[in-house]
């Protein structure tokens, strides 16, 4: 489909452009401004060049939280994407149960993030929480406020609980858009369930899965409220993800310069990865 060229279309985009530019460019410039200055209070700022960036690159604290962030994001992607696809494949296609499944599955997506964190905080407490108490009764020594492993286990379970449904909804939408004729043809050819999945369902889900991966990547990299309420970054610093570290610096310690430099690097990491995904996605579409 060849779209006609029409420069007047810019007028349609204008409201969106103004709103987003107001919200994006002014704050982003503020951050850039801080990242190259030094302050000693009293609203006095001095030009400091790129020292904050250089310092950050050598800072082990930053390396650690960046490493934890990547570990977290890759782990939840590795669990949520296959799990979401499996659940979508097993879902009913017709009847009342479709609505029931969709409504119940979408529920975690609509709970405010701090409530999600608080809910899991209590749910996993070893003495009074259902999960913690059950695990301890079964003989596991589980206490997420003291053990690093248990804290990570709880954090990842919480995220899987919270977001797998998004992958399910998107994959399911991709699946129901496959016409019946495809399945009939496959049956005539005597295709195995695996072959149907590999050559019919997976290619049809490619686009929605790319969107799912992209959204989950961006959102898990930005995750802040849930881990903060769940573990507060502890025990020690073991679950201090990038955004928690950043907020500690900017709001807690009021180290504006370093925090701003960190924000920019943070943003660039997300931008670069998403751009690679996006380019790959667009290339696939053109083929």
């Amino acid at each position, binding site marked *: *489909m060849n*779209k*006609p*060229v*029409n*420069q*007047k*279309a*810019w007028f*349609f*985009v204008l*409201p*969106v*452009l103004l*709103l*987003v530019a*107001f*919200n*994006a460019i*002014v*704050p982003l410039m*503020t*951050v850039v401004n801080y990242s190259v200055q030094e302050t000693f209070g009293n609203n006095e700022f001095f030009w400091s060049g790129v020292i904050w960036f250089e310092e950050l690159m050598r800072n082990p604290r930053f390396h650690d939280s960046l490493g934890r962030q990547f570990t977290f994001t890759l782990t939840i992607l590795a669990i949520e994407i296959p799990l979401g696809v499996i*659940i979508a*494949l*097993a879902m009913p296609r017709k009847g009342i149960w479709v609505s029931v*499944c*969709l*409504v*119940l*599955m979408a*529920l*975690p*997506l*609509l*709970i*405010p*993030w*701090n*409530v999600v964190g*608080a*809910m899991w905080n*209590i*749910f996993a407490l070893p003495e*009074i929480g259902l*999960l913690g108490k059950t695990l301890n009764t079964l003989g596991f020594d589980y206490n997420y406020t003291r053990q690093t492993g248990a804290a990570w286990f709880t954090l990842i379970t919480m995220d899987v*609980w919270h977001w797998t449904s998004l992958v399910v909804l998107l994959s399911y*939408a991709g699946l*129901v858009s496959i016409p019946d004729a495809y399945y009939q043809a496959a049956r005539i050819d005597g295709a195995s369930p695996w072959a149907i999945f590999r050559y019919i369902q997976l290619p049809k889900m490619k686009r929605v899965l790319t969107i799912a991966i992209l959204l989950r990547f961006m959102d898990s990299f*930005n995750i*802040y*409220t849930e881990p903060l309420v769940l573990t507060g970054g502890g025990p020690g610093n073991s679950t201090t993800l990038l*955004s928690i570290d*950043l907020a500690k610096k900017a709001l807690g310690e009021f180290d504006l310069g370093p925090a701003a430099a960190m*924000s920019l690097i*943070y*943003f660039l990491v*997300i*931008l670069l990865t998403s751009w690679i995904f*996006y380019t790959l996605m667009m290339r696939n579409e053109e083929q």
Partner: protein
Amino acid sequence: MKRYAWLIPTIYIIFLMLPIYWLVTMSFKTTNEILGSFTLFPQRFTLDNYRTIFTDPTWYWGYINSIIYVSLNTVISVAAALPAAYAFSRYRFLGDKHLFFWLLTNRMAPAAVFALPFFQLYSAIELFDTHIAVALAHTLFNIPLAVWILEGFMSGVPRQLDETAYVDGYSFPAFFTKIFIPTIGAGIGVAAFFCFMFSWVELLLAKTLTAVYAKPIAATMTKTASTSGYELGLLAAAGTLTIIPGAIVIWFVRNYIAKGFALGRV
């Protein structure tokens, strides 16, 4: 294998419901019971927690504030995204692809990065602690998403529809409001659902931009937790009540979610 397929969604839904059950059951317990013993059901069933919330204005105003700014945000985001998505789906223009990606990048901006600059920006234009401030701030990540979703739906509508309408003598505004918008109703439903969802669940920016008059319910919860010790029963009741608006919205758009996604490219 097909016969046991229903087991997978069933087990998944049970897993989803367990923490929610725990929250709801706690909201009917007294704080002493929650802290003192491990009980699967409330031993002394109480509605006191809910009574507190519905009679104390600092609590119920939190809900009203949240609903006001979330609704404002949904309306602004969808209204602004509609013409933009139409432009992206129907025309090519200078810099369209770059613009589209630039919009998406704002979906990626970490709220933690923008919290402090947002506070300064909205204080400077004297909108701090108003509903409109939070609604505008949330458009940062909701407009890109709405444009993305709506563009997918609009591209699924053949352009012959537009051309036939013009031949029939419709002007552009008449065509857009009378024919085009009803055609992509499902898409608008899905976009509005996602705008509602992401604005409702966001806390960091909403909390940063408000103090008293527009304070969201989620922020009320954190405040209460720190001033009067841990009133777990009360917090659980407040948490349970935050799930309800979401559940109502899902119920209304459930058919759009199933069919709507399939129609569009999302």
